[in-house]
Every structure is written in structure tokens, then in C-alpha cells.
């Protein structure tokens, strides 16, 4: 199974690299879809069907919206000049990346070795979930009962995203 996942991740990397370098934006969007659909296969191989269902539907809807947007606007990528402001932004990006990598290295030194996670919290969830929540599907028991605040936060993020979209995409004001 690790071999299959490695091959699929290789495909994802190829798709992502092609999406960056494609001249035509439509082919870049479709190459970006490779990443999402390969992730679906990875989720199924790793025995996470809940995530796979969400990912395949969301990927399809996002791809439809992106293709519609690209077909209605321009298919040619706009290249700007590489002036002094571009130097400043690229330098800042590289600096922040270096700082983030340094902190990641520092933080990962204290973690458990790769593949040997400590199961302190997960043991309580896995063994007692059916008795305590009454839900046979363990994932639903965790996300709505043990981690209810997380789910409330996710739903609030969706509401906020819709508010932002409605605020930006309005040309004429609504008559009250």
C-alpha cells in the first residue's frame, strides 16, 4: 500500500508542477484537479471514507466553478514586470519560509518518532465512544460530541465565508 500511495503522491507532485508552469490557465486548473482526485484515492487507501466523500464532491464543485470562471474571463496568464517591489515581496516570502522551517525543525525534535504516535487521547476515544455517545460511526461521535466546539467553529467559518462572498460580489446595493 505504501508503494501505491508513493506513486499517487508522485502523480500529485507532477500535476502541481504542471499547474504552475502551464501557459493556458484552463489546463492549469484541470491539472490542479489531478491533485484533488489523487487525494481522494489516498483517503480511500488509508481507510478514511468520510473524508473521501467530502473531498470528491468538493473537488468536483470547485473544479466546475473554476472552469466556469476561467471560460468567462481570460485563458492567458498575465505576466507582470519584475521590478523592485517584486524583489521585496519575493525576499520577504523566502525569509518567512526559512523562519517557518527553522521553527518546524525545532518543534519536531520534541515529538514522538515518525509512525510511533502516542495514543493517550485516541485510546479513550476509540474504546469508549460507542458507550458514551451511542453513535456507531466513530467519526461522527468524535466530531459532534467530543469535539463539538471544533464543529461549531467550522460551521461559523462557512457562514463567515458566505458573508464575505456576498459582501464582495455585490455591485448594486440591495433595496430594503
Amino acid at each position, binding site marked *: 500500500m505504501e508503494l501505491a500511495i508513493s506513486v499517487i503522491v508522485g502523480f500529485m507532485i507532477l500535476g502541481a508542477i504542471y499547474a504552475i508552469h502551464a501557459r493556458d490557465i484552463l489546463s492549469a486548473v484541470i491539472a490542479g484537479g489531478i491533485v484533488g482526485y489523487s487525494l481522494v484515492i489516498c483517503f480511500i487507501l488509508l481507510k478514511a*471514507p*468520510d473524508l473521501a*466523500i*467530502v473531498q470528491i*464532491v*468538493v473537488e*468536483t*464543485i470547485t473544479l*466546475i*466553478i473554476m472552469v*466556469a*470562471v476561467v471560460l*468567462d474571463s481570460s485563458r492567458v496568464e498575465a505576466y507582470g514586470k519584475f521590478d523592485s517591489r517584486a524583489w521585496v515581496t519575493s525576499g520577504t516570502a523566502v525569509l518567512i519560509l526559512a523562519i517557518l522551517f527553522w521553527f518546524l525543525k525545532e518543534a519536531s525534535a520534541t515529538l514522538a518518532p515518525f509512525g510511533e504516535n502516542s495514543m493517550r487521547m485516541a485510546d479513550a476515544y476509540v474504546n469508549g465512544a*460507542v458507550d458514551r*455517545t*451511542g*453513535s*456507531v*460511526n466513530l*467519526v*461522527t*461521535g468524535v*466530531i*459532534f*460530541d467530543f469535539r*463539538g*466546539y471544533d*464543529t*461549531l467553529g*467550522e*460551521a*461559523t467559518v*462557512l*457562514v463567515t*465565508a*458566505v458573508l464575505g*462572498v*456576498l459582501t464582495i*460580489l*455585490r*455591485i*448594486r446595493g440591495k433595496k430594503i
Partner: protein
Amino acid sequence: MTVIVKKTTQLIAGIVFLYGIYIILHGHLTPGGGFAGGVILAGSFILLILAFGSDFLHLLREERGSTIYENLAILAFLLLALSGFLAGAGIFFANWLPHGTPGELVSAGFLPLYNIFVGIEVAASILTIFLALVIFKEEILK
């Protein structure tokens, strides 16, 4: 779109809608749940809009209906969570309804209700974003 696409959409959209409801209602028994089922529900509406054009569903003029549903669903989710606080347990998100036998459709206390309201909320959110993009395009073309 052509006749083939319209006819296929007529046949499929209802089945997709029912499948979304199934995923939401069985969220505490089988893989899936509110988020997955809600996105599938929104997908059936988006399929109809893509096949039949903007004028087919009359709610396209205003996305008022879907925004109201979205806000009411998140409000109901909050009230359900608050009811655990008021019912004597003293904990936010307390699951104070009887749990029933695990594995039956009506069991697990509040979890199916949470699933239903989160499903409505996710479906209405994604549909609202899609409708906002469609209306934006129509206003641009005018």
C-alpha cells in the same frame, strides 16, 4: 445545454438529492455525515442550474432564501448546543437525550439532529456562494 444533458439531469438530480439526504440521516451509522451530505445536496442544485440555465430556478434573482436557511440552521445548531447547558447537565454540547440502542436509525441522542442542521447549513452555504457568482456574472453582462 443540449437535450441529452437536460434529460440526463432530470433523471439524475432527484437521485443525487435523495442520496444526500440518506448520507445526512445515516451520518451516525455509516461513513458520511452533515458535511458530506450537505455538499451532495448543494451539488444536485448546482447540477440543475448548470443544465437548465439561470432562469430555471426562480430563486436566482435573489439568493435571499438560501441565506435565510443558512442562518437559521446555524442558529438551531447553537440552540441545540445551548440546550445541553440549560437542561441541567451544565455542559455546552451535553448529549442529554436517551441514547437508545447503538446501530438503529433513531439513536445516539443529539447526533442525528446536529447532522441534519449542519447538512442544511453546508448545503445552503455552498449554494449561496454559487448563486452569488451567477448573479455577479449577470450584473456584469448588463
